């Protein structure tokens, strides 16, 4: 494969190769702030990006933080995460429900006051 330095980081070609041409992973149900936690150590022969995600997520990390650290768009990261989820290499912790309940609001107020 062409060495990384010859790629334009954000080029459509590079992103296409990373995902094997797949796009859209709404089926994985991942939000920007879904927390991802690694469940199994990286294995030999893994795609380097998959390996990087497993290293990053030893402590819980949101999808959008993974995107920032890998310097890849969220849309690409969710495809990579869908692979890892399917193989149960990572665990996904869904965000708090859309309709905020009063306990969450109270907790956030309390948390901010202590900031």
């Amino acid at each position, binding site marked *: 494969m062409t060495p990384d330095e010859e790629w334009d980081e954000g080029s459509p070609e590079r992103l296409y190769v990373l995902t094997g041409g797949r796009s859209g992973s709404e089926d994985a149900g991942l939000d920007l702030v879904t*927390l991802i936690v690694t469940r199994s150590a990286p294995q030999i022969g893994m795609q*380097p990006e998959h390996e990087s995600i497993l290293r990053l997520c030893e402590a819980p990390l949101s999808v*959008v933080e993974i995107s920032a*650290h890998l310097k890849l768009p969220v849309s690409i990261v969710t495809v990579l995460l869908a692979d890892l989820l399917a193989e149960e290499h990572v665990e996904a912790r869904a965000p708090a429900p859309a309709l905020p309940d*009063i306990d969450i*609001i109270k*907790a*956030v107020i309390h948390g901010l006051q202590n900031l």
Partner: protein
Amino acid sequence: MASRTSDTVVGPRSEDALPSSATSAVKIVIVGGFGVGKTTLVHSVSEIRPLTTEETMTQASAGVDDLAGVERKRMTTVAMDFGRISIDDELVLYVFGTPGQQRFWFLWNGLFEGALGAVVLVDTRRLEASFDVLGRLEESQTPFVVAVNAFDEAPSYSDEELREALDLTAEVPLLMCDARSRESSKDVLLALMRYLYSLATTTGAK
């Protein structure tokens, strides 16, 4: 044989790692025009060094005719800054700054979904930059507060004048802030949360 990609990825600093007990996250979105102080506000409240995620969009560049008559496409990179606050051992709050202009609304997909609410950050020198955003938030029924980032050189208006100019209803909280100050920025987020609390308790939500 080490993989280059793994080696070049700089992960979070160890002191920025979330506890393994972190189980769920919530988001607040800061919206506003360029230069209004979104990034500054995110920096002021974040417990981690703020991060940036980028999306690319392809847009036809309007008004450009070339000889072949083929529409030129341009790749634009749009950056979104965000920060993080640990609320307790289990709950994490993410604060996103996103551009308010209509052409960036594609970024809003997924951003506002499930968001607690929004802060519209306003510069009194460019009030009109907020009109689109306010309309869009009202349409999508996203609860929001309006915070005026008080730049030294910006004209100051009374609350009534601002409400009138921005066409704000009486119940939408309006406050002044200094996005450079942690305390002030924290107060903005608290104003949003107290507003959400009042909405939740008056509409009979659990």
